[in-house]
């Protein structure tokens, strides 16, 4: 059984609810002449779980690394825990945990030596625990206790990722940046990861997550944004985002069937002809009502609808539409 921070401690968080932990205004980030982020605005409240989604190359990691203080913004303003993450690094870093998308270890150190080194470089534990206690607890929570004496180069990819998470969360930070934390993890490790992160979030830690696993964002994020081509295309709570996305009815009929009368029913179908059938896709804001119309139409024409599906709006559908460049 895993032991999570909230099960062990009373909160020591020095943050105030309903205040802003991360803010960006007109944020632009460039690599030479290439602009990766084109002037985004972001506002993340203290204690919030915020997911930043997007296709590969959308600008998520650049945005995250700018918020973490790894690089200065090319223009615009950034504020993290009340300071500039790049210039006020010395004040801000003790309060944040960073799990980079890709960061390594000294391969010849053992897992325990790696943790010990990290703690020797970090501010004192906010709850006053000594290094041995923090390490033992962290290794136990992330199921790495049996690997304490193993050199890092002998760890699997998933074990390295968990060690990565341990270092980011060891000090139970006020603000936690997670850049694709569960990539390459097996289901059990993913569950352990989210147990730990959720417990920290429950305890007051603000979490900023990027992930390609949309179901993780759906399950854990209070709010989310989808980036595309260096800009934020969609932002809001999951309900807000899905409210703007239509449900979809789809089916196929024989190519000889006249499907144009569907338009007369007040529907707006898209038709995709195949060699023997016509694929019909119907975006709808009233799934039940329009499904009833379609089935009635099919019944009255004695048609069989092949591959019939009716699906509610989903984050995956929003993501697909955004990644194709359609505006939200």
């Amino acid at each position: 059984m895993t032991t999570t921070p909230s099960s062990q401690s009373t909160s020591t968080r020095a943050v105030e609810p309903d205040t802003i932990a991360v803010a960006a205004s007109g944020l632009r980030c460039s690599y030479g002449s290439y602009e990766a982020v084109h002037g985004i605005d972001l506002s993340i409240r203290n204690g919030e779980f915020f997911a930043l989604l997007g296709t590969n190359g959308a600008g998520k990691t650049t945005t995250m690394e700018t918020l973490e203080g790894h690089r200065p913004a090319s223009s615009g303003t950034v504020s993290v825990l009340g300071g500039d993450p790049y210039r006020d690094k010395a004040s801000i870093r003790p309060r944040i945990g960073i799990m980079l998308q890709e960061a390594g270890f000294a391969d010849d150190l053992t897992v325990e030596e790696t943790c010990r080194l990290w703690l020797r470089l970090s501010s004192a534990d906010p709850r006053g625990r000594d290094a041995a206690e923090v390490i033992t607890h962290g290794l136990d929570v992330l199921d790495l206790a049996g690997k304490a004496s193993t050199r890092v180069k002998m760890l699997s990819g998933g074990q390295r990722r968990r060690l990565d998470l341990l270092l980011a969360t060891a000090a139970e930070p006020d603000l936690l940046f997670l850049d694709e934390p569960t990539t390459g993890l097996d289901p059990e490790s993913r569950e352990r990861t989210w147990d730990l992160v959720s417990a920290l979030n429950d305890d007051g830690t603000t979490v900023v997550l990027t992930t390609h696993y949309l179901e993780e964002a759906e399950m854990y994020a209070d709010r989310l944004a989808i980036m595309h081509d260096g800009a934020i295309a969609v932002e809001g709570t999951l309900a807000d985002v899905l409210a703007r996305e239509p449900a979809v009815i789809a089916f196929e009929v024989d190519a000889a069937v006249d499907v144009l009368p569907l338009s007369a029913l007040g529907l707006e179908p898209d038709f995709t002809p195949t060699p023997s059938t016509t694929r019909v896709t119907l975006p709808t804001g009233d799934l039940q009502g329009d499904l009833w119309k379609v089935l009635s139409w099919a019944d009255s024409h004695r048609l069989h609808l092949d591959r019939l599906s009716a699906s509610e709006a989903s984050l995956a559908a929003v993501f697909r539409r955004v990644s194709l460049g359609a505006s939200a």
Partner: protein
Amino acid sequence: MTALTPASTRGPSAAQRVLAIALMELRIIVRNKTVLTGAVIMPVGMAVYLYFIGADQLAEPSGAAVLGGLTLMLVALLGVYLTATTTLATRRQELFLKRLRSGESSDTVIWLGMLTPIVVLVAAQLAVITAGFGIAGVEAPAQPLVVLGAVLGFLALCATAGMLTSIYTPSAAAAQITTLPFIAAVVGSFFWTAFDDGFEFASRLTPGGALQNLLMTGWGVEPLGASTAGAAVVLLAWTVLPYQVAARRFRWEKR
């Protein structure tokens, strides 16, 4: 917006962080037999070899200064410059530099932590070699503080030059190539200074020239004076310049 009020201000000092990184790096060096051999045994072996091939000239102060210079260059260039370049390139390739930078340590702390054990290890080697030369009867320097300053300055120069070279070194293997120009330049300029070719002033502005100038003064071959101070400034400049460039252009992660 929250005020910038850390929950805990109790953190390790910069010196404690440098020490933590340095001890980690030392542990890795000791564990890696190839690095240990290259950084410790080979330079000492080369010093012994140099002593035996030049033993007949060591009664003269100039001979001792040249032996001292050659030994210092070999040990520092292999032990500090090459090792610093290799270490920084390796840690960058492992993405460990990026990891360290994601924490609370400043850039300077990370550089000092990575380079200090390398310099200390070589300084210890030089101390052993110096004792060995003393026992073997090599002429002692007339101005030991000048020699000490030259040694420390050259070690620092090798460390900052290693920092700079590591920027252009994508891997540990590539360090065998990327370090060659600087090694050739230092050794070449050390010998260039000895030639009466009309470019003495220019030759003394080189790192090898400044080093030889200081060592010759240290062994009493040349008088202590303005040219000694000039050589010290040149050596200092060759230490600071690579640091300034490296600090601005340093690469923390692989391409």
